[in-house]
């Protein structure tokens, strides 16, 4: 069977599975729609959380990013896992004890005010929608590339599928589909990694293969350091991402963004008890760690394979480089997508891939080797994971599985985010703020309509993306980190925190972050509207816009603390509420009655 048919079969089979599960587990009540009736086993919930959490960015982009940024890529590894420690200890058990449906609901009750709730809804929608647009785009690209259709058609297919199972299924359907999606995506990620690790190092376990030897007695990482520095790149194991301060800020921003993203927090409302909420966070982290500890192995092995494919012989030798005519099939395939582009600058019919931005090496290359610049002019980092099985010459079914895995990652995250948006609109805005007399049925319908609306809106931005791929994911984290996380944390741990402090904190935190991102990346990412330019010289203390969420969070904490000390403390019943969520005893299953 050829690759195209195989891909159709595998992707089709997994989709039938998801939709089947979604229809079987259809939600009947608001409780089932929002929090799956509160009866999901903690291990199952951990798996669903992991699928919810690992988006197209984790699955497709991350290993590629690490492959080209070496040690600097650690910020993603530590940032996107370390957040679960915060989530497990600071938020999950207490929010579960609170026992309601949504994050803004907690903020509204804890800060005894509808305005706080609306501010929280706005922050939530901003963060989730920016994130979901990125997923829609990833889905559109994946569908179009592998089903051989245009990008727009791919996007419509993606929208339709998300619509069917998120809108009809609600949380109950999503939870069980996400379990299936986790299984698909983790197999899709680890199987090629195991093959490649075995090929290169003889060790079946990729995590250990990374620390093993290639060939006789050279360690993989030493070899990689050698190979990349020989071509003028920075040493793989010590290359950093900006200054040390920037790496700290970046990691922190991703960590607290993780703990503040509403679609992840909402997951802990679906387990039966406070005890289960704690352990469920642990299981989620285990399931995530399987992928996150494999990713650095995939990254370094792919980089080594890539370097050695292009430069099989000695650097500088006349026949040291790959002949363009003899390039492997996977390169030809990816050239068609324009994500991999070669340009024979010195007209020798061979490909030279080296760091021509390194003046010392570029000079030497030109004078001694006759190289006229880097000839692999475009190599999109996102192709690494998808091309990996082809580079390693793995069988077709593995390649098809990777496609299905990437789609599972994008779909599950998009569905979780849509659910967070729809519950914020129908439950927080309609039912509890503007139209308290609607029936449960009407509320459900409103939830489904707002989900559909969000899909259309995200689809629209996905069709006309103003640079919305990597930038959006970073801003989504920054927004969640600087607005929702501090408000939740202080609500639980700082009893004197009042509504004035919370509102001032959220508004200033998200405001500072948005301003910083927009001033460097353009207003709503539209090119040419950035008034300070995306230049290093203009960065505050050398912190990149992607890492600025941590500064926003610090601003939020500080402003909230100062304002709350100048205004009256919260009323007694709110202080009692805080007291009560601090102990597990007496927790209830969330339900719609107040």
């Amino acid at each position, binding site marked *: 069977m050829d690759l195209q048919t195989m891909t159709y079969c595998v992707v089709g089979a997994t989709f039938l599975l998801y939709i089947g599960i979604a229809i079987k587990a259809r939600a009947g009540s608001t409780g089932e729609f929002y929090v799956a009736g509160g009866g999901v086993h903690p291990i199952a919930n951990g798996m669903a959380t992991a699928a919810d959490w690992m988006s197209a960015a984790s699955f497709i982009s991350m290993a590629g990013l*690490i492959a080209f940024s070496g*040690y600097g*890529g*650690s910020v993603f*590894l*530590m940032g996107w*896992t*370390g957040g*679960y*420690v915060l989530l*497990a*200890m*600071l938020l999950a*058990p207490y929010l579960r004890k609170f026992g309601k449906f949504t994050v803004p609901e907690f903020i509204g009750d804890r800060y005894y005010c509808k305005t706080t709730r609306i501010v929280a809804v706005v922050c939530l929608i901003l963060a989730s929608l920016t994130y979901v647009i990125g997923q829609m785009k990833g889905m559109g690209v994946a569908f179009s590339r592998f089903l051989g259709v245009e990008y727009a058609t791919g996007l419509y297919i993606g929208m339709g599928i998300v619509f069917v199972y998120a809108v009809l299924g609600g949380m109950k359907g999503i939870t069980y589909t996400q379990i299936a999606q986790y299984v698909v995506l983790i197999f899709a990620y680890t199987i090629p990694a195991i093959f490649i690790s075995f090929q290169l190092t003889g060790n079946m376990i990729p*995590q*250990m293969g*990374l*620390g*093993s*030897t290639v060939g006789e007695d050279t*360690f*993989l*990482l*030493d070899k990689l350091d050698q190979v990349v520095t020989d071509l003028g790149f920075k040493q793989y*194991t*010590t290359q950093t991402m900006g200054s*040390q301060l920037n*790496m*700290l800020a970046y*990691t*922190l921003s991703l960590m607290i963004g993780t703990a503040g993203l509403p679609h992840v927090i909402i997951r802990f409302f679906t387990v039966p*008890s*406070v*005890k289960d909420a*704690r*352990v469920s*966070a*642990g299981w989620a*982290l*285990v399931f995530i*760690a399987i992928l*996150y*500890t494999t990713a*650095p192995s995939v990254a370094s092995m792919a980089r080594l394979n890539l370097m050695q494919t292009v430069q099989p012989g000695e650097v500088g030798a006349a026949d040291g480089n790959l002949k363009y005519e003899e390039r492997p099939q996977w390169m030809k395939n990816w050239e068609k997508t324009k994500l991999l582009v070669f340009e024979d600058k010195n007209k020798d019919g061979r490909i030279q891939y080296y760091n021509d931005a390194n003046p010392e090496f570029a000079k030497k290359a030109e004078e001694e080797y006759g190289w006229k610049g880097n000839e692999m002019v475009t190599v999109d980092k996102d192709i690494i994971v998808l091309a990996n099985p082809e580079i390693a010459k793995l069988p077709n079914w593995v390649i098809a599985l990777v496609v299905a895995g990437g789609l599972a990652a994008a779909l599950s995250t998009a569905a979780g985010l849509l659910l967070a948006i729809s519950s914020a609109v129908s439950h927080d805005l309609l039912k509890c703020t503007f139209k308290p007399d609607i029936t449960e049925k009407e509320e459900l319908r409103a939830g489904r309509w707002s989900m559909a609306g969000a899909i259309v809106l995200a689809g629209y931005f996905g069709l006309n993306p103003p640079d919305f791929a990597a930038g959006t994911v970073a801003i989504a984290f920054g927004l969640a980190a600087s607005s929702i996380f501090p408000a939740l944390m202080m609500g639980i*741990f*700082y*009893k*004197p925190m009042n509504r004035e402090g919370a509102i001032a904190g959220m508004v200033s935190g998200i405001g500072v972050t948005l301003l910083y991102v927009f001033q460097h990346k353009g207003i709503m990412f539209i090119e040419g509207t950035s008034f300070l330019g995306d230049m290093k010289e203009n960065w505050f203390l050398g912190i990149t816009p992607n890492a600025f969420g941590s500064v926003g969070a610090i601003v939020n904490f500080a402003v909230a603390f100062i304002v709350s000390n100048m205004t009256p403390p919260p009323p*007694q019943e709110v*202080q*009692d509420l805080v*007291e009560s969520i*601090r*102990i*597990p*005893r*007496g*927790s209830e299953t969330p339900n719609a009655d107040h």
Partner: protein
Amino acid sequence: MKESTEVTETSPEYPRIHEYWVHNLQIMGCLLVIWFLVSFGCGILWVEQLNQLTYKGVSTLCISLGVLSLLYSFFLSYTSHKEENDNGHVYATIRPVLWGIAFILLANFFGSKGAEPVRLGGFQLGFWFAQQGAIYCFVVLVFAYVRLMNKLDHKYQVEEE
């Protein structure tokens, strides 16, 4: 965290609940310190020092730890001299001596390996923490938290039915 008596929890159980909360914060604080040390510490702040840490360095570290334990044991035996020497006390003073000897043996072992940097297989130590070790530690931390909190809930009788 300032929680004075102004809270209405006039119920007789309040002091116990308050103690539970303080204890909870202590557990959390300790675990978060470890969380910080393994990720921001070993993974970012001291990554270069860890990458360059030699066996000689580890050996020096072990010697200092060994000497400290021995000093501590002298201190213990001096202060507990006047009290009656039951078996528990003897054991308590001997333990640091054993630790001290173990550390010095370890120091000897590492010292014999010379000035080579410490490696975990092919990993430099700092790089390993940043890309592998920190994540494993996170997993252990969350499960440790679950265990400690379940025990604490039970001790203060605040667990769910």
